[in-house]
């Protein structure tokens, strides 16, 4: 940047000081606009393709909007009626609570298991670590639609491998022809297992990167001073990986609260209402029932929840100086 100025001075020795000043002002105005010009296409696309629909989502949530309105291009303003309808519907509260519990359980399990595996990887031989890493990358890369299909096959009533293993290998009882989706609780157990299985790779790889930065000497010194394994983790390792844990947790909350495919495809695109999560509820209300306005109001609740989680994520990024 400074070199551009030097060049300019070399090129303009014969001009009067006034002309030179004006020229340099014009040049600096031009160079000041460069970053804006560079960022403009991206900002415009984000604003047009994400920002505008988001605005339309807010508007829709205050309107009566069904298939007829899509065709006629006319809308009726309802004010907060959509919100009144959903908030006075007991189903909404049931689903919100279910989604909160689903998110809390999955995030908790993912973070605890992920941290445990990351700690485990510190103590294993190199070849074991390599194998675990390869498995993690394979799982991470598997498309969600494919993952759901695989799990449907694993739990298949007739010849699924899970029922066979539980009956004949673990001998946990008779699981022959067991239907995992007969009760929502066991159905959600399967869905959670699938979600956690899919989420672990990112968490493990990220946390292991953090854990492996803790110097061995620090851990050994703590052990010499009589710290237990638990104490070493709490007082030596956790403080170092804490920022990472916070980021990974808030990302997991954001992802798990919005889970859609794992439920929708798993239940063959026809989930019964006892399997509704907020995302499915919003989707069904819009595309199933054709009440786009009400579906938008439900989606708004999801957005508000996620903004809260995103706030923690961004604050953490600001705190570690990544955005500066």
């Amino acid at each position: 940047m400074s070199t551009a100025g030097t060049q300019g001075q070399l090129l303009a020795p014969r001009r009067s000081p006034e002309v030179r000043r004006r020229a340099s002002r014009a040049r600096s105005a031009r160079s000041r606009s460069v970053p804006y010009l560079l960022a403009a296409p991206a900002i415009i696309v984000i604003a047009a393709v994400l920002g505008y629909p988001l605005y339309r989502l807010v508007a829709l949530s205050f309107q009566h909007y069904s298939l007829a309105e899509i065709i006629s291009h006319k809308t009726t303003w309802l004010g907060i009626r959509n919100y009144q309808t959903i908030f006075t519907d007991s189903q909404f509260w049931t689903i919100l609570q279910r989604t909160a519990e689903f998110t809390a359980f999955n995030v908790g399990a993912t973070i605890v298991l992920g941290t445990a595996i990351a700690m485990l990887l510190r103590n294993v031989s190199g070849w074991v670590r390599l194998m675990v890493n390869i498995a993690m990358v394979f799982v991470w890369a598997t498309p969600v639609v494919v993952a759901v299909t695989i799990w449907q096959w694993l739990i298949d009533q007739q010849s699924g491998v899970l029922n066979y293993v539980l009956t004949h290998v673990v001998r946990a009882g008779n699981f022959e022809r067991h239907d995992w989706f007969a009760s929502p609780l066991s159905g959600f157990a399967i869905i959670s297992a699938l979600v956690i299985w899919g989420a672990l790779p990112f968490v493990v790889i990220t946390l292991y990167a953090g854990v492996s930065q803790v110097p061995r000497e620090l851990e050994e010194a703590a052990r010499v001073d009589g710290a237990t394994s638990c104490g070493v983790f709490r007082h030596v390792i956790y403080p170092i990986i804490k920022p990472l844990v916070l980021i990974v947790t808030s990302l997991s909350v954001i992802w798990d609260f919005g889970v859609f495919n794992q439920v929708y495809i798993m239940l063959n695109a026809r989930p019964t209402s006892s399997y509704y999560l907020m995302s499915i509820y919003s989707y069904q209300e819009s595309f199933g029932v054709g009440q786009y306005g009400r579906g938008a109001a439900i989606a708004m609740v999801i957005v508000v929840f996620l903004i809260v989680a995103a706030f923690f994520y961004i604050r953490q990024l600001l705190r570690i100086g990544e955005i500066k």
Partner: protein
Amino acid sequence: MNTSRTRHVLANIGGLAVFIVMIFPVYWMVATAFKSGSAIASVRPTWFPTHATLANFKDAMTRPFFWSSVRNSVVVVVATVSVSTVVAFLAAVAIARFKFYGRKAIMVLIVLVQMIPLVALIIPMYVLLARLHLTDNLLGLILTYFAFVLPYTVWMLRGFVLGIPPELEEAAMVDGCSRLGAFFRILVPLVAPGFVATSIYAAIQAWNEYILAYVLLKQNHETITVWLASLTTLRGTAWGTLMAGSTLIALPIVAFFLAIQHRVADGLTAGAVKG
């Protein structure tokens, strides 16, 4: 000494258990894809496909809409990747190389936008595209994918640009290179590996996406994930065919992903690990 060795052995056993639990579903997909119909249908699982057959792959590839959905996915992926990488790179240079008013706001915006769930935006997007008569049109889908991959690709490329010392460009300019010349002769070639990683990331996102494609496209325009899910959701499924189809869909992605996986983790946690 003895206790530390026991701990090491126990850790290895635990590590292997993790390996088996994580890899098994993936292994089972590939193994099933090569099994014969009778081996799949039997209650007693065949742990290793001894009589491997390619019949399932053949069946998957001759199912209706397989090739058309592959073609649609490839079109969508190529269009999304090529446009988003260029646009994202310009923005990445802006926020990595320049100090300007509003820079921090743009960065927060880019991170924040990534948090908006697809599910929430499907409704207005469907309504808008239905009005523009762009549903059941690949262009509408490409446009939405473009916007969805953009924030993260900007973020990822920014990391690559930051990794290249600005002194290199300054030195080139001292040697008589213009600003634009330094940009094309120094920065662009040095960021090339970043372009590769970012394009692969965008390609994976576009290849794997399901809901938008499902809502916005009809059968003659469906993408590969929608094709697979539609096979899945028909009851009385042919598992061999499904697993062969799944393998075919996952294969290119797994290969690409192996190439960039550490970059993705770095990008999401935004380099929080660096010393």
